[in-house]
């Protein structure tokens, strides 16, 4: 028990002694990874051309868009995708190297094995890079390095090619196409030109501190930094082969270097056991170990990567961290004491920090090991408690500070000797709110007007002579409450007043700016002059005012508030740097207005700034352009010159679909009318703070106004045919006027039934159909009319024949002969005659009658004629009952034929006229022996014609007439009943 306490005390002291007093750190935050991905260890990180982050892990390849981690599926049946190397080449292919030596390629949205004849390495891929000839290089841990020239894979190793070692940790390229790799046996420089290999090695014999080179980084200045296993980092100048180990690394005891990241002024070094170490190599040289600082609690750093927003990604063994890096740092304690209630801040000409808090005035000097030293000053003239409201350094190096109720002091910066400035008008009792000046002129803003101090020729003496002038409401100012005085580059003097707007004094006298200049605000407390000579005024309740010369050379005031991008209305301080930014210290964060882009940028939670809550005079610009802000409990150091990164979310389309079918967004699309349900998904990549990204879209052709959304999809159901352009933009603020826009134009086609060609075709077809219908109907009507006409003609002919006086005369003559001889026969004759006429009357209206019925007529007719010609006329009808019932014939056709035969032939008992009616095949035949009369009876010749036409109209074949010389044959087809 005792020993435990002893050791605890010892350990406590060890910690206390070994941990130097060091308090300035960048901000770091943990990226929340899904709970399901907890045991994933990130090995390597890259960013692709679409700004997506790719994380190579022990459990596969993930991509991250700021919101979701997505595992990339692979087609290959790899048992284990343990990613150890990643590279995005110039063609947009992502190369993936695995622990088991396999190389994969991610292209066209899928991850596949790299297909090469030579086979894949069998040892871990440690690095992949493309040289400027388009060759892809792979470094392996055990097989040297490989290069792929697009056709074949070549190998460099120790035995064959004199590579420094086969165990290679890293690979980088230089501008000359040379490949530099760090191995277990030194540094190798390889070239591969026209299949010729060249290798040059650097080892400890050349002055390397260690043969095991874990990391290499090229510096823009033409040398390279190398990180070793055991001896820290060093610099190699390839042109002179000079190797240089910085003093800070000559006694390195932090173990193996796993990763290195080069920034403008700093190198971050990730170690295996001692966390993250920062080496600042600019004119301020210092090394700091971040282990133990807020958020930097992880000793093992796997990899470091900086994205195009300037965020640094830190993969620790179990965590993924993000940091804004060297751009912003925080000082939270000084010599171990927490900072509180800062009233004034100044960075002097030796880059020392001066500040005042409730305890008085302090000066902080920063050491090269990252620690700081503080010196406090006290003054016997100052009664306690006191408040120093403002600190200023004049052109002669003296520190001035203004107090509440006790005037101002001038003090020697080094030894703290000070004088309390006094005059007849009791300057000693003034409350000085701010001090400014130029050369030997000092201006004070006080609660009873402005005071001008003109230093005498002995200004290099602490207690120099001075001329003091007072300006107040009696001498031209609007108000005696002056918050700040500013001397601009044109020699004008500006006064920020309480309740009475802005006043300017030039050679002509005083000028007041207020409502007439469209300035709504009344109280101004801060003024600054930007790089271009524009003036900026912070108001208490109405945002910022900018005094600028417009294109027409008129000086004008412009107001900035939330609607045009100012992130906050709670402004506490203003400051302009010399590279074109106006820094606006707000309650919730720090805004910056960039004069070149004319837009606001915003440091907030992502950069570690929660609440600023600074006093009025706590913003100071150092001679090297760094802005220091004394916030309530910390100093914020902003290096605006290092922030050259993308400031707006990177907007891209993710995918677009028309009724779930993907649309190729690289090409203009004609979308069928049936697929008029469109959906767009997009992303505005802003890893710094994805949650502040707002989108605005407008479907040109459908929407009149921009639609604000935070969703990453927009859907448009049931779109009408027409031309559209989907326009999309995104912003971190409510101001979209400076944001980039992406758009996609397309056409929704008319549905088929509204296409011009379809309509034309349909119309033509319709007209055609109507025409056809009319024509057919016409033909039909004609046909019926003609049939009717022929029928009429035939009836007329028959009737005419039957009422032919000749027939009647013959009939009656016959009857007269019979009447005397045989009364019953005469009656029969009359009956037959009547029957004959009745049948003619019955059937004449019909188109067709049964053959049976026609034969009855024939029988009656022949009976009548046989009474007259007796045996001289013979008729043979050989028709079966079936035939006579099933077949149809135009009425009176046979009667006409038989009558014709009787009419045109002579007959005697010796030479009887024989009429035969019978079927031959399908034809019905009326045949008689030819015995033409000597005196021919007058013939109209209409009988045969009439029959032919009627048969034609009924669709029956024409009748055939044949005269053999001995016989006269009429042949025709009958209609079937069916």
């Amino acid at each position, binding site marked *: 028990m005792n020993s435990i306490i002893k050791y605890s005390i010892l350990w406590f002291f060890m910690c206390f002694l070994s941990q130097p007093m060091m308090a300035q750190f960048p901000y770091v935050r943990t990226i929340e990874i899904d709970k399901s991905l907890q045991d994933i260890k990130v090995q390597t990180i890259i960013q692709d051309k679409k700004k997506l982050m790719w994380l190579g892990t022990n459990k596969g390849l993930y991509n991250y868009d700021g919101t979701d981690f997505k595992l990339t599926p692979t087609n290959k049946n790899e048992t284990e995708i343990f990613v150890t190397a990643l590279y995005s080449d110039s063609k947009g292919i992502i190369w993936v190297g695995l622990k088991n030596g396999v190389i994969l390629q991610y292209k066209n949205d899928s991850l596949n094995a790299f297909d090469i*004849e*030579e*086979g894949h390495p*069998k040892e871990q891929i440690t690095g992949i890079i493309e040289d400027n000839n388009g060759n892809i290089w792979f470094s392996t841990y055990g*097989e040297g390095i490989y290069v792929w020239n697009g*056709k*074949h*894979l*070549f*190998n460099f*190793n120790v*035995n*064959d090619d004199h590579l420094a070692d086969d165990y290679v940790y890293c690979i980088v390229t230089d501008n000359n196409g040379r490949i530099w790799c760090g191995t277990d046996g030194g540094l190798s420089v390889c070239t591969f030109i026209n*299949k010729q*290999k060249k290798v040059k090695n650097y080892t400890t014999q050349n002055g390397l501190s260690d043969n095991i080179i874990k990391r290499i980084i090229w510096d823009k200045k033409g040398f390279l930094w190398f990180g070793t296993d055991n001896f820290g980092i060093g610099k190699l100048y390839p042109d002179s082969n000079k190797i240089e180990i910085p003093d800070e690394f000559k006694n390195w005891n932090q173990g193996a270097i796993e990763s290195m990241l080069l920034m403008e002024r700093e190198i971050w070094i990730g170690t295996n056991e001692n966390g993250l170490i920062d080496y600042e190599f600019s004119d301020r040289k210092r090394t700091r170990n971040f282990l133990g600082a807020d958020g930097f609690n992880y000793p093992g750093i796997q990899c470091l990567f900086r994205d195009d927003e300037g965020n640094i990604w830190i993969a620790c063994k179990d965590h993924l961290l993000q940091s804004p890096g060297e751009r912003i740092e925080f000082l939270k304690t000084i010599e171990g004491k927490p900072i509180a209630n800062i009233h004034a801040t100044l960075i002097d000409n030796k880059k020392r920090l001066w500040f005042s808090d409730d305890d008085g005035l302090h000066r902080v000097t920063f050491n090269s090991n990252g620690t700081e030293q503080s010196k406090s000053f006290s003054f016997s003239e100052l009664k306690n408690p006191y408040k120093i409201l403002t600190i200023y350094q004049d052109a002669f190096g003296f520190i001035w500070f203004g107090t509440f109720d006790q005037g101002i002091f001038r003090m020697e910066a080094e030894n703290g000797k000070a004088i309390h400035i006094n005059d007849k008008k009791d300057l000693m009792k003034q409350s000085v709110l701010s001090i400014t000046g130029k050369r030997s002129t000092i201006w004070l803003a006080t609660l009873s007007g402005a005071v001008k101090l003109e230093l005498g020729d002995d200004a290099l003496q602490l207690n120099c002579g001075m001329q003091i002038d007072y300006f107040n409401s009696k001498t031209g100012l609007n108000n005696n409450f002056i918050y700040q005085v500013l001397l601009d580059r044109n020699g004008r003097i500006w006064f920020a007043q309480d309740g009475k707007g802005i006043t300017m004094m030039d050679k002509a006298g005083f000028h007041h700016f207020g409502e007439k200049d469209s300035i709504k605000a009344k109280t101004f407390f801060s003024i600054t002059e930007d790089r271009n000579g524009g003036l900026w005024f912070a108001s208490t309740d109405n945002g910022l005012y900018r005094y600028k010369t417009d294109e027409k050379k008129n000086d004008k005031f412009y107001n900035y508030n939330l609607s045009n991008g100012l992130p906050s209305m709670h402004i506490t301080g203003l400051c302009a740097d010399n590279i074109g930014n106006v820094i606006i210290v707000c309650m919730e964060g720090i805004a910056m207005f960039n004069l070149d882009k004319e837009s606001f940028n915003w440091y907030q939670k992502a950069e570690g700034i929660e609440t600023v809550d600074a006093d009025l005079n706590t913003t100071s610009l150092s001679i090297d352009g760094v802005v220091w802000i004394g916030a309530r409990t910390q100093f914020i150091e902003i290096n605006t010159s290092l922030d050259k990164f993308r400031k707006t979310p990177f907007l891209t389309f993710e995918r677009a679909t028309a009724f779930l079918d993907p649309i190729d967004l690289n090409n203009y699309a004609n979308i069928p009318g049936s697929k008029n349900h469109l959906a767009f998904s997009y992303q505005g990549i802003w890893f710094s703070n994805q949650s502040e990204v707002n989108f605005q879209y407008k479907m040109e052709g459908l929407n009149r106004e921009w639609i604000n959304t935070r969703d990453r999809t927009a859907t448009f159901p049931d779109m009408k045919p027409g031309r559209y352009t989907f326009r999309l933009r995104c912003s971190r603020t409510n101001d979209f006027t400076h944001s980039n826009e992406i758009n996609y134009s397309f056409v929704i086609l008319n549905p088929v039934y509204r296409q011009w060609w379809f309509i034309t075709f349909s119309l033509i077809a319709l007209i055609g159909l109507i025409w056809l219908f009319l024509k057919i109907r016409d033909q039909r009507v004609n046909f019926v009319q003609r049939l009717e006409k022929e029928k009429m003609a035939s009836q007329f002919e028959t009737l005419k024949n039957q009422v032919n006086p000749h027939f009647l005369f013959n009939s009656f003559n016959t009857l007269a002969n019979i009447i005397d001889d045989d009364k019953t026969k005469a009656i029969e004759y009359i009956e037959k005659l009547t029957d004959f006429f009745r049948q003619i009357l019955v059937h004449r209206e019909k188109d067709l009658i049964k053959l049976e019925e026609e034969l009855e007529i024939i029988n009656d007719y022949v009976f009548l004629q046989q009474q007259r010609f007796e045996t001289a006329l013979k008729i043979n009808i050989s028709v079966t009952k079936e035939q006579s019932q099933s077949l149809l014939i135009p009425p009176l056709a046979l009667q006409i034929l038989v009558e014709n035969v009787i009419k045109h032939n002579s007959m005697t008992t010796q030479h009887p006229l024989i009429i035969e009616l019978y079927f031959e095949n399908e034809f019905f035949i009326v045949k008689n022996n030819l015995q033409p009369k000597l005196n021919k009876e007058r013939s109209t010749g209409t009988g045969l014609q009439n029959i032919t036409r009627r048969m034609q109209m009924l669709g029956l074949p024409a009748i055939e007439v044949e005269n053999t010389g001995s016989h006269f044959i009429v042949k025709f087809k009958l209609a079937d009943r069916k």
Partner: protein
Amino acid sequence: MKKNISVLLFFIVTCIVLLAFRTVNSIYKVTDGKITFVSEASFETITAFSEKLNGMMDTSNQEFAFFVANKSFEGFNGLLQREHFNESYLESDKNPKSFFTGRIIEKIIFSKPGIFYVRAKGLLMIHGVEQERIIKCVLLIENGTIKVTSKFSVFLADHDINVPRIVFEKISPEIKIQVEAVMHEKIE
């Protein structure tokens, strides 16, 4: 031509060195070797083979050397084609042999029987032009024998073998090669 001789010299020296420094039973020699090549052009497929593939391997340092006499190739689609192969393309009088010499990348324990998928890195010399190549091979190691099989391709252009434009349709620019060899421990 000079290169050609140098490669030949290199080969001979390698052989001598191999023989001189070999440890006991570390040299394996091809006892039965066959090499086949196929040219699959759009109009014609040409196949030829040689059963006179020769070579040796030193298991102590994994170095190897294989060679074949170009004139030993048989097959082809006719005698004229074989003549062309020797005279116009490979110029066999000038370059009588083709070589592949180098070292196996993977470390193999030759005393352990089994199947090993390895890559041989070396210089491939055809038509007097050498190219560095990595060639995938399968080694089947049994007691005292190593069976080597390999498939790879050779681009004619890599070895300065110029094919006249007229026969472009008949000869593929990429020749597929298959090697099967049985190696035995060399017993003095």
